[in-house]
């Protein structure tokens, strides 16, 4: 690990001020991606801006038909929140499948979404539910926020504040975890909500994507059988020692069926 300065601001404004003043500073939330990268010297920020002291970044609330989750809310809090469990149980279920207990007690929703790891869970939920991303300066739709592998629309000094999830009529999630790392090999989140019927896939491709053939099939007939014949094109999907692109394409269909079953 290289040396860096450490800041722990207590307000969003202060955090943004530090980040704006120093282009080589990086914000850190749960640290599950950034700290290993620092340890391996793959990253050399001049300063870390620890967001854990900013109270306004935390918390879960319901406003009308929207669930608002602070960016620094930890996976464990999402998984156990009564508000989320009653409004979007599939999202709570998703959070409960991330990593292990330690990861869930440190990792944050905002950190995961801002990192946009192709094997992360949340992007599929955000995309399928039509979530809105509230930053310190604007609000972005999920389609605009995610821009491919480890890339988002966030500016270097822009902070994600909260994620707004419209409450769906129903939603479900299913994934195949890598048995060692527990990252998603392929996860599918299906939702019938404000944005219509959506099927979003994580783990299989270079970033979250919508499976439009499955969406069309479910719009005509919401049932696991309706998507059983959907064939995902393996072209462009991830291929590694854990599974080939063809295998991941196969999983897209299987997980879509199971997610529909989960949604009921």
């Amino acid at each position: 690990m290289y040396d860096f300065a450490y800041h722990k601001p207590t307000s969003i404004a202060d955090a943004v001020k530090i980040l704006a003043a120093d282009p080589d500073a990086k914000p850190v939330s749960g640290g599950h991606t950034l700290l290993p990268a620092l340890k391996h010297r793959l990253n050399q920020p001049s300063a870390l801006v620890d967001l854990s002291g900013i109270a306004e970044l935390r918390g879960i609330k319901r406003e009308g038909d929207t669930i608002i989750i602070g960016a620094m809310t930890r996976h464990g809090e999402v998984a156990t929140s009564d508000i989320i469990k009653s409004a979007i149980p599939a999202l709570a279920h998703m959070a409960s499948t991330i990593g292990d207990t330690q990861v869930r007690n440190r990792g944050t929703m905002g950190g995961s979404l801002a990192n946009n790891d192709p094997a992360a869970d949340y992007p599929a939920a955000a995309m399928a539910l039509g979530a809105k991303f509230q930053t310190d300066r604007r609000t972005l739709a999920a389609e605009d926020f995610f821009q491919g592998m480890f890339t988002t629309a966030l500016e270097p000094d822009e902070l994600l504040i909260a994620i707004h999830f419209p409450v769906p009529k129903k939603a479900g999630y299913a994934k195949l975890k890598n048995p060692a790392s527990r990252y998603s090999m392929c996860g599918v989140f299906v939702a019938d909500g404000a944005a219509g019927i959506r099927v979003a896939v994580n783990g299989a491709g270079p970033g979250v994507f919508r499976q439009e053939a499955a969406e069309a099939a479910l719009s005509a007939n919401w049932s696991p059988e309706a998507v059983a014949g959907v064939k995902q094109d393996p072209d462009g999907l991830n291929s590694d020692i854990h599974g080939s692109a063809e295998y991941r394409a196969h999983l897209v269909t299987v997980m879509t069926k199971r997610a529909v079953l989960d949604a009921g």
Partner: protein
Amino acid sequence: MSENTLAQAPVHLRQGSSIGQPLTRRDGVLKVTGGAVYAADNHPPGLLHAVLAVSTIARGRVAALDLAAARAHPGVVEVMTPGHKPALAQDPDEKAGPFAFRLDLLQDDRVRYANQSIAVVIAETIEAATEGAALLAPRYEVEPARMDLHDAESFFPAVVGAGTPAAEHHGDVDAGMAAAAVRVEATYDTSAQYHNAMEPHAIVAVWDGDKLRLDTPSQGMAMAQARIAGLFGIPPENIHIRSPFLGGGFGSKGMISGPQVLGIMAAKLVGRPVKLVLRREQMYGPVGHRAPTRQTLRLGADAGGALTAIGHHTKTASSSFDDFFEPASGASHSLYASPAIATSHEGVRLDTGTPLFMRAPGEATGSIALESAIDEMADACGMDPLTFRLKNYAEVEPISGKPFSSKALRQCYEQGAARFGWASRPLAPRMMRDAAGMLVGWGMGTATFPALMFQAKARATLRRDGTGLMEIGAHDMGQGAWTALAQIAADGLGLDIDQVEFRSGTSDLPDGGIAGGSAHTATAGMAVHGAGADVIARLAELATGDERSPLFGAGNAGVVARGGRLSRRDDEARGESYADILDRAGLAGIEGSGGSAANPVAQSAYAMHAHGAVFAEVKVDPDLGQIRVTRLVGAFAAGTIINPRMVRSQYYGGMIWGLSFALLEKAVTDRRSGRIMNADLGEYHVPVNADVPSVEAILVEERDAHVNALGIKGVGEIGITGTAGAIANAVWHATGRRVRQFPITLDRLID
């Protein structure tokens, strides 16, 4: 208690003899309390730390190293390079003996494989040495790496494995194939595997003039002494090795490796004690591995299911600079009766480290292919796989025609099948599902491993206080030598085990031989047994020649030793204690010695093997292709069982290794760079507890009068054989898919 002495036994049930008792591990408390001192736990005063800089290319030359940057780093004491190193008495590329594999000891700037040592940084702290090694920032002249078994030019080696002929045959396989009513010809691929012992290779080296003290894990201390003595030009007895415990070896610690010798050179260079420990990724290259193979099996059978021919050809790889060829085809020599058998090997050279002995070298690799092919043939004949194997049961060793010294394989089949419930297996595949909709399959494989013996010596002492001492430089890799050999010692000395001090694990004791080839208990055990018999004979001579003794005139043959007493065989009431005999003779103690070696007469008359049968149940998720081995039942016959608890543990370990072979282990090479891409335990998969929900080992009774006087065969490696094939066959039975590439991965099992 000295670190290398285990005198205290746990409470156990005595039934007149220590051999056969399921004693718990005598070193167990030391291990679970952290009291067991492993090589890297040693910190002599003045210790410096050495870290290897290793090549990131597989073939070429080191063009430049930034020595100034490394030397300038605070804490760095020395940087050892080809141009700056202690002189050696012997070229590390010289073949001084069949087991003197060529080592990379900075002899020049050549790079022969990825992870080869190219410099050693020695520093006051491990951190400074690590940073110094990074600062070397090597630049290379890169040559294209040859990494593909199927692209390289092949040739026919003369010998394979430890020096067995590369091609053997009896009968005419082509004629047998021509005459066959049913034929199976199939090709099986196995992957490169790395030993990955939990304890990395480590060494703490201390020079004192031309004397050398080493703490380093070794499966063969005497062989290491000889190799080091040759390299440094000092007498072997000047080298004192302590190796009381190994965190696994699996063959990779059989010969001293290049990095260990570099630790000794580093200590010589700086004139201070040096510790060098390999990092996990550095174990993928210089310490051996199992090479990939492509095996072609040709089986013929008559209409009744009797084999008419077995052809087994293996293509495998050695390094560009030394010879070790995985002797996989040998698996077909001893298992199934056939009027014609031909085995052969073909080699290529790749830019890897030299492959070496790895857990059942040849036997494991050949077994998975042979057992798969036998299963394919049983199916082609429409026969149950067990029925087919019994039909082709070998009453004599097929390749040699020799009778077996003992063979309880039939009992293994019977007991294993009964325990597993094999009789209710449907013949056709894809016939069974569980309540969750998983496809269920049952498969079996035959296990076999040769019963080997090497040479060893031991020294026994009976003391005036009535206790005994047994000394042997044996090796405990975790298999239980501290326990099993002490049990043999107790019986050899006619003492309760808690009256015996057992010293082991250092090179200044009598040479305990090599802990390899599943032969250590037989080899070291027979030396211990012989030393016990010798010292008892000397004690008996004292007593029977002394007219004050109740044993006077009994003669050696007429005396028995038990519980610390010698008694007349014809009247056990007449006798006296060891202590009384020594006391009267005015001796503080009496010493004897013993040695062991294979008996050449018995070896030429008999084929000697352990046998077993393994039954596996797998469940395959039809949607995901995920494979779970839900049950493993193995039944093994391996002669006299010294300690059933340790032996069962060895069988479990072997069977789990077989599971690993069938489903998990594979080193993945980047063909552009020649580097291993999964050189860590995150991505080089080995089984964890969750992968092994149920494993059972049945110990089948077997007495062998020929292998050695105690009737001991080996138990360490046999569990791997049979198991890997049984799992592959169960996967076929579950799914109807015959996968011939190992490990079997889930993507091969979906539609």
